[in-house]
């Protein structure tokens, strides 16, 4: 431990016993909402997957929607704030530097990637730029605003929600625990219009979305993204080739502190442009996200999985996601870690 953390450690050691006990209390496995709501929720999720579901409206004065038969008012998403951004880089010499920060989750224990999947597709997104980043030379950067994400809504019916997307896609990812038996699922519903430019599609994927989470058989909840209200400033971005070079040099952020160990050898499974949308970030800006795996991970992974009772570890694969800042170096001020936004 670094010496400068010693004092923090000393302070945390003086936390009251009651707080420590409380934090360790077992969470009851109660359903967060009644069974009938779970059934409605599951049905709604199915409807979403089939592309005939619907969503929300804070804008209660707009026409009513009928969840039962899928009738919706497609004008509803017109009342959502539009995403405004400059169409071109104004003047490269006058662009101000933006802070680029990233808070690692401290995931991964070394020796393998931070997600365990059965198929690489388990970690695949429906990002419109997935393996399709070519031709993008500039992207807008937005100042972060308070309240980027709404508080989570658990079991709340879509009817009571706040946004409706006329054209939408649904993405689901999953991973597995060491025992191979349990895991997590994450769903995203986002507005999608293939007729738009790739940049606009990426912005819709980023900012017009609901993030779902599932609690096993017990229920689900979702968070709603609030699109930025300010005008995005256009910045030049590096090419995919330049991003790959940075990847190989280990010049990236990752939640897995050990991904850098395999920078030179990792197999790239996919690459996409992705905006990081965390509250702590000063600016919402694009990154090249590489999903990687490495042969060297499997021996350690299988050993750990076997020790945790998994009978068929060879059925699983290990991946990590690493992020290379997309805005050109001269316009970003990289902070190793983020604690509080500086703006």
């Amino acid at each position, binding site marked *: *431990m*670094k010496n*400068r*953390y010693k*004092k*923090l*450690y*000393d*302070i*945390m*050691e*003086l*936390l*009251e*016993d*009651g*707080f*420590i*006990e*409380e*934090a*360790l*209390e077992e*969470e009851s496995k109660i359903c*967060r909402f009644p069974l009938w709501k779970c059934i409605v929720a599951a049905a709604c999720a199915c409807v979403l997957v089939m592309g005939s579901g619907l969503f929300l409206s804070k804008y209660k004065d707009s026409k009513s929607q009928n969840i039962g038969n899928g009738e919706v008012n497609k004008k509803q998403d017109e009342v959502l704030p539009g995403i405004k951004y400059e169409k071109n880089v104004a003047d490269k010499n006058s662009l101000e530097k933006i802070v680029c920060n990233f*808070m*690692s*989750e*401290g*995931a991964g*224990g*070394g020796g393998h990637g931070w997600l365990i999947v059965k198929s690489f597709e388990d970690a695949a997104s429906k990002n419109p730029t997935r393996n399709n980043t070519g031709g993008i030379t500039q992207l807008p950067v937005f100042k972060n605003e308070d309240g980027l*994400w709404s*508080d*989570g809504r658990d079991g709340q019916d879509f009817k009571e929600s706040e946004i409706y997307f006329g054209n939408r896609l649904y993405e689901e990812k999953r991973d597995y625990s060491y025992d191979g038996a349990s895991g*997590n699922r*994450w769903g995203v519903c986002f507005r999608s219009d293939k007729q738009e430019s790739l940049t606009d599609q990426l912005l819709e994927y980023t900012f017009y979305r609901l*993030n779902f*989470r599932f*609690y096993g058989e*017990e229920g689900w*909840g979702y*968070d709603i993204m609030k699109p930025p209200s300010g005008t995005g400033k256009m910045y030049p971005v590096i090419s995919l080739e330049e991003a790959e070079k940075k990847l190989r040099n280990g010049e990236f952020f990752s939640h897995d*502190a*050990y991904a850098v160990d395999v920078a030179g050898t990792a197999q790239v499974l996919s690459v996409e442009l992705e905006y990081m949308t*965390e*509250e*702590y970030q000063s600016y919402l800006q694009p990154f090249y996200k590489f999903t990687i795996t490495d042969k060297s991970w499997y021996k350690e992974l299988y050993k*750990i999985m076997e*020790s945790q009772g998994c009978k068929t570890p060879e059925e699983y694969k290990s991946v990590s996601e690493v992020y290379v800042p997309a805005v050109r170096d001269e316009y970003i001020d990289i902070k190793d*870690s983020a*604690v*509080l936004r500086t703006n």
Partner: protein
Amino acid sequence: MEDYEIVNLYWERSETAISETKKKYGHRIVYVIGNILSLEQDVEECVNDTYFGAWNAMPDARPGYLSAFLCRIAKNLALKRYKYLVADKRNKSLETAFEELDGVIGTLDIEQEIIAKQVAEAVNAFLKMKKPLHRKIFVRRYYFCDSIDGIAAHLNLSKSAVKSILFRIRKELKKYLESEGLM
């Protein structure tokens, strides 16, 4: 078995004290150590050392919260081993958690023990005012150094919700410490 009965077993030097502790709090001890150490062998050895530490500490200690008492022993032992192993960069989650908090408390001049105590008291007072869920997330992250993933999974929350809550708590804590004249 109730905590006081287990504590009595330690005082009576009964070896069943350890098996009862293991039965009741074994998984919590593994959780605490597992957040700091990664390798199974290290965790296992540290867990055994924790039982041994409890055996040595009682008597004289008669803890009011047995679980918290054991967790403190476990955490200290795990940190000692972590320091020994750090050259092998086994687990960075610990430093990651402290890095986050560093911007809030780390800027304070808390070299002196008395100031550290004042800050700790203020943190305790601040946490008392928070919702239990927010408090749990804070303690799990900054006392137990649990990962965002781990907290989200345990508390049935999304990772983004956990990160948002932590971000807001840190911001509020900074304001609170300022209002208390500690910053």
